[in-house]
């Protein structure tokens, strides 16, 4: 349904809390400070040995102590994706000032996106099975091999019992989850939905990415993340979790919550593409962004900023740039464009962290810089060097995945 002018507070969805475990820090305050200061979290990978492959950089989560957020009893059963998701969910609820109680727990839920799930656990399980036989596999590992484990663990630790769903679609997993959460809140099946994405860096995942010619320095040169830059040569793998606390405006008003921004709509779409290939065609991006704007009741000319998907990949950045050039060609004042993947790497379900970054940007009225960008592919209004003030109220979060899948969300500033 395309949005019309009359829309009730029960159908308006606002962001009232942010929680994250990221390479740029744990929790909103540290993440926000480092993001807008233009800090970069990319460094040599420390948690596993990268000598077998040609890439060595990563954006790892460091200084994360799960014990600070999770009870010992539940933590024992959790893998890394689950502890990151549970901690982020707790941080988002705390930030929103929501305590889960027997009265509200059935109306609080979680819609989580993950691209690959617990690749570390799956590989460990498969390894034992194939090398030592079925009698040696450890049943304790089984629950964590399913992709819905993080959302399940988070619900057990935090006690919420409403809608709980895990979605996956490669690099748009988190954006898709958030679009779904918005739809569920509008349907009235929950009062509060946590939504975002989680993925981890594992040795297995990292090595596979090098084989798929994704990671820098894929086509030679110095290794690094350079979104939109002429010298980009692949992305740097990252990890982490970012979760938004979403609720209807009616509910947020009722409890006097602080509001970061409003999510006014979403667009989902596809383009034919080969397996694991990035689509070369700009139509998929343009069609989906138009769909999201129509769904939001926002005009293309009013878009003031784009939180782009570009990660330093050769095809993705080129196609995304071209799509925005074509889309905004007739506009005199072009929107600002930034990508934070030069700072936090590509974690596939990083849409959760990027959504948190956009919510903070809308609240502050400025955008964080694209780290690693010095010479743009084409001259556009990129945020280079340091943060930049944005004019206007309408912003777009871009989700683009290999395999030809798109999910765009429209975030608007909220005026009381």
């Amino acid at each position, binding site marked *: 349904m395309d949005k019309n002018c009359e829309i009730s507070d029960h159908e308006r969805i606002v962001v009232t809390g942010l929680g994250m475990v990221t390479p740029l820090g744990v929790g909103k305050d540290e993440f926000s400070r480092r993001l807008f200061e233009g800090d970069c979290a990319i460094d040599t990978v420390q948690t596993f040995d990268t000598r077998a492959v040609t890439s060595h950089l990563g954006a790892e989560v460091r200084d994360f102590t799960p014990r600070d957020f999770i009870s010992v009893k539940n933590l024992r059963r959790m893998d890394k994706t689950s502890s990151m998701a549970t901690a982020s969910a707790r941080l988002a609820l705390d930030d929103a000032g929501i305590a889960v109680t027997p009265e509200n727990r059935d109306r609080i839920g979680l819609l989580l996106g993950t691209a690959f799930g617990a690749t570390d656990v*799956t590989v460990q*399980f498969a390894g034992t099975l194939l090398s030592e036989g079925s009698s040696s596999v450890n049943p304790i590992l089984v629950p964590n091999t399913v992709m819905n484990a993080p959302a399940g663990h988070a619900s057990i630790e935090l006690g*919420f019992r409403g809608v709980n769903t895990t979605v996956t679609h490669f690099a748009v997993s988190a954006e898709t989850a958030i679009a779904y959460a918005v739809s569920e809140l509008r349907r009235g099946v929950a009062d509060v939905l946590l939504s975002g994405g989680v993925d981890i860096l594992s040795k297995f995942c990292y090595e596979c990415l090098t084989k798929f010619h994704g990671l820098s320095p894929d086509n030679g040169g110095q290794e690094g993340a350079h979104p939109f830059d002429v010298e980009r040569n692949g992305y740097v793998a990252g990890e982490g979790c970012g979760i938004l606390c979403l609720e209807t405006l009616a509910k947020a008003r009722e409890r006097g919550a602080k509001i970061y921004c409003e999510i006014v709509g979403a667009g*989902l779409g596809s383009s034919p593409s080969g397996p694991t290939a990035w689509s070369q065609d700009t139509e998929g991006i343009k069609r989906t962004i138009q769909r999201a704007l129509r769904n939001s009741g926002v005009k293309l000319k009013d878009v003031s900023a784009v939180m782009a998907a570009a990660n330093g990949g050769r095809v993705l950045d080129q196609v995304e740039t071209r799509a925005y050039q074509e889309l905004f060609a007739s506009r005199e004042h072009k929107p600002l464009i930034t990508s934070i993947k030069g700072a936090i790497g590509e974690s596939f379900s990083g849409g959760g962290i990027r959504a948190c970054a956009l919510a903070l940007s809308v609240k502050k009225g400025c955008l964080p810089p694209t780290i690693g960008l010095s010479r743009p592919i084409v001259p556009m209004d990129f945020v280079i060097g340091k943060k930049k003030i944005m004019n206007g109220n309408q912003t777009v979060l871009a989700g683009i995945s290999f395999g*030809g899948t798109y999910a765009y969300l429209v975030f608007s500033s909220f005026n009381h």
Partner: protein
Amino acid sequence: MSKNKRIVVTGLGTKNAIGGDVAQFAAALRQGVCGISELDLFDTSEFLTHKGGQVKNFNPRRCIPKEFSLKRMSRADQLSYAATMEALTDAELYPLPESIKEYTGVAIGGGAGGLFEAENFYADLLSKGFGRSRFSRLSAIYCASSADRIASNLGLLGPKITLMTACSAGATALGLARDLILNGQARLMLAGGVEPMCRITYAAFNALKSVDEDVCRPFARNRAGLSLGEASAILVLEPLESALDRGAKIHGEILGYGVTCDSFHMTSPDEKASGAVRAMQAALKDSGLAVEDIDYINAHGTATPVNDVTETRAIKEVFGKRAYSIPVSSTKSMHAHTLGASGALEGIVSLLALAHGFIPPTIHCVERDPECDLDYVTEGARPADLRFVLSNSFAFGGNNTTVIFGKYEGRGAAHG
């Protein structure tokens, strides 16, 4: 979201242990055919159990048009693609008209994805080392690959989502697909689920000791666990008006669904069954139905000792005295537990029951568990004129989904 729009099912397709297509499946459900037998997909000699509900004699080349390469498709991709072709043909939408592609999407409940193929990769990785393993085998490992292949091959430009809530994923996919049409993201949806048999899943359920080494016996005193199965099930969903406009045959209507979370334990249901109770209540509310309206319950009925009593308790709590007069059956006794596909497969069962006027039986339940005291239709299929059918799917992670289907009476109604 436009609540007054009605969403109907106009196409069905499946591959499962008792049906190579929907017609065969309908006949097998009516006859009470058991599809649980010795597996021949892989060597089971090292496992504790050897049986399962395998799709036997599956020849993908026979159901997938020649122009599509099978080379980079996993077994899951092939099974789901075969079901998609059948569903589209059934809906008289193959080849898909160009005009409808822009707003056609895919929502699939996934499970093991390409793990069957990935096992060979893991084996290579362990024996030959990283440099010598064949990475092309990995391109279809993740579940989102099935939706990607369907959308890319058919040229679909609409939303694409993969649900990963283990055994409730296929059910949630149906509900989500309905919502995507209701809120304007799509006009036609291919929705369903796919689960391939593979050693990793088989080993996992063996390790949890939740598999019956013979055949599963839902609600029976001597039940000892589930039988693992594999299947694909795809449904074509569209608004009633568009189905009527094009003179389509209508199998039934998706009236509503409910999703909740136990927030209790990763692999055991909450014995108070609160999550299951709330899922059924949410689905009734979403459908605008009362407990008196439900004519048949297609149970989750896995035949694990704990599920069947818990589910029975939940049904009694929701339906009160009426629970004793509603037929309840577990068709998993015939087609086995198909995990990520089960909610969609049992959606097809529910629609066939509505359109063909019969209640499929629970087979293998010879001596009933005294704690399971409902009408489980153990004496064979029963003719019945059904109006509303409720289908339960409960999963690891404490995810519960209930979907309610309605008989469609009027122009275009499908009959058995």
